[in-house]
């Protein structure tokens, strides 16, 4: 009997038509849309006189462009306002479910999908956003698409895709204290580089991965794109089912039993072959931080920025250019560097467990005077829960500014920008030049590391500040 990987099982079940020497025509179960990559897609559909094939398989929320204060008021930025209004118009016109600003389930698209129970094992999920891979944490094939493809999916509920190669990344063993799933993924990317999984779809496996909560798994799958992978997924298990049970769109009653029986088949068969297999030991993973201008330029927070020894040619030139942008020198320690901003949020680490972690550790402390600290919950639900658990009070007492849900400072599309030359330690997913604002200097880290930096005002090992 043929041995298949989890990825194969889901992919093969969704192929509508196999084109010889061409991409497969591939069915999409759920299509998430937001205000940035959908307007032009809808405009083109209108010009071509085509409607939306399955509005009920489409779910919308405005997240990238929205302000994170005064969301009950008209958006001040004209272009942002226009994009959000376009989304509203298009959703109303085609009968698409919209979780608008102020509604109970508004939030970052990759936070609300799982919250609503829309994201389920075995599904194929796309969105006009790079970090769609987040939904892979549920054992789904989820990936980002461009606006032209958004148009294709709206029109046909299908997409043309060439099947990527398969990589399995296994992480084994127990995570050390103060080490989180964000550190796991930053560690992996630092080892294989930001292009290390180009052309592959990744399955994350191993005892460490199994031990993680759904939110922690989402953080890992979220950053699959940052190592060049098409997407990443984790096989569903009891942790997945416990998360999903009772969610608004999760199956219920007899349907639940049927669904779980199917989900239990969503595993890679023993002996199935991957094009590439990598294994990492959890004991080697410590709190990480990026120091450069792509997510692969990361080190343990206790290590020195790599020297240029062994580098030559364009490799060396581009390395030094990155360090120059960041204002760092090869070989120097990163611990102790002064920081200006911290940002807890984004589709990577903007969920309730992330906010709990930060609150737990800053309780009783005050942030450093030199730091501006933003906490942006990933959704209204997360915001509500943080309030109910008393986390908001703890964070505000510590001097953190709590804002309303949205992509916020992850990317400089809304008002939450980092000024030129300033250092921001961020729980988000990209540290490219200018990502958080022209000239902004981004360092990526886990919520614990960010919490530690907020207290000391400098790059800090969270294990030192918070002990055990």
């Amino acid at each position, binding site marked *: 009997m043929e041995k298949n990987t989890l990825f194969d099982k889901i992919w093969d079940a969704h192929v509508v038509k196999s084109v010889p020497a061409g991409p497969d025509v591939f069915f999409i179960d759920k299509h998430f849309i937001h205000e940035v990559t959908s307007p032009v897609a809808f405009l083109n559909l209108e010009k071509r006189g085509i409607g939306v094939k399955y509005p009920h398989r489409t779910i919308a929320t405005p997240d990238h462009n929205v302000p994170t204060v005064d969301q009950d008021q008209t958006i001040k930025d004209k272009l942002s306002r226009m994009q959000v209004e376009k989304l509203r118009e298009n959703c109303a016109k085609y009968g698409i479910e919209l979780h608008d600003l102020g509604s109970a389930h508004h939030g970052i698209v990759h936070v609300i999908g799982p919250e609503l129970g829309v994201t389920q094992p075995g599904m194929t999920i796309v969105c006009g956003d790079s970090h769609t891979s987040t939904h892979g944490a549920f054992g789904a094939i989820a990936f980002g698409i461009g606006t032209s493809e958004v148009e294709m999916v709206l029109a046909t509920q299908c997409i043309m895709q060439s099947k990527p190669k398969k990589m399995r990344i296994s992480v084994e063993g127990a995570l050390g204290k103060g080490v989180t799933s964000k550190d796991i993924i930053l560690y992996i990317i630092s080892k294989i580089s930001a292009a290390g999984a180009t052309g592959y779809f990744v399955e994350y496996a191993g005892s460490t991965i199994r031990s993680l909560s759904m939110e922690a798994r989402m953080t890992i799958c979220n950053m699959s794109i940052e190592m060049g992978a098409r997407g990443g997924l984790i096989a569903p298990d009891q942790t997945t089912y416990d998360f999903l049970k009772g969610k608004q769109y999760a199956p219920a009653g007899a349907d639940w039993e049927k669904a779980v029986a199917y989900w239990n088949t969503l595993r890679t068969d023993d002996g199935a072959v991957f094009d590439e297999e990598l294994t990492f030991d959890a004991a080697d993973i410590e709190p990480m931080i990026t120091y450069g*201008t792509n997510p692969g330029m990361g080190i343990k927070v206790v290590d020195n920025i790599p020297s240029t020894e062994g580098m030559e040619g*364009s490799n060396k030139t581009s390395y030094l250019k990155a360090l120059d942008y960041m204002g760092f020198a090869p070989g120097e320690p990163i611990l102790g560097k002064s920081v200006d901003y911290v940002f807890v949020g984004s589709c990577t680490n903007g969920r309730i467990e992330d906010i709990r972690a930060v609150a737990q550790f800053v309780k009783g402390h005050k942030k450093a005077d030199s730091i501006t600290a933003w906490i942006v919950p990933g959704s209204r639900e997360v915001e509500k829960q943080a309030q109910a658990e008393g986390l908001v009070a703890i964070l505000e007492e510590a001097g953190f500014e709590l804002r309303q849900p949205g992509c916020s400072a992850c990317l400089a599309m809304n008002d939450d920008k980092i000024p030129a030359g300033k250092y921001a330690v961020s729980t988000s997913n990209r540290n490219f*030049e200018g990502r958080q604002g022209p000239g902004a200097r981004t360092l990526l880290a886990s919520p614990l590391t960010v919490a530690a930096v907020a207290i000391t005002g400098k790059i800090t090992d969270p294990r030192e500040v918070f002990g055990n």
Partner: protein
Amino acid sequence: MAYDKFTILQSTAVPLSTENVDTDQIIPARFLKATEREGFGDNLFRDWRYDSAGTPKADFVLNDSTYSGKILVAGKKLWMRIEPRTCRLGLV
């Protein structure tokens, strides 16, 4: 102007000898606020083409009249694979 279908593109090439050209250089996120397809070209490589005052930077290849063309030849790791924003520029 939407990109017309083509089978063969014949053009001179523009060399961008930088490595690790990421999506935020190709088009900074703050310019992704359009509701129409037009206008993105103005902001292609915006922060590499223009300084903060909006003056073209003389040493950037797209500002050098020696070079023109429809084909960009870049260094290793041009981040154009599947990035939604670069798809909108018709670069994928």
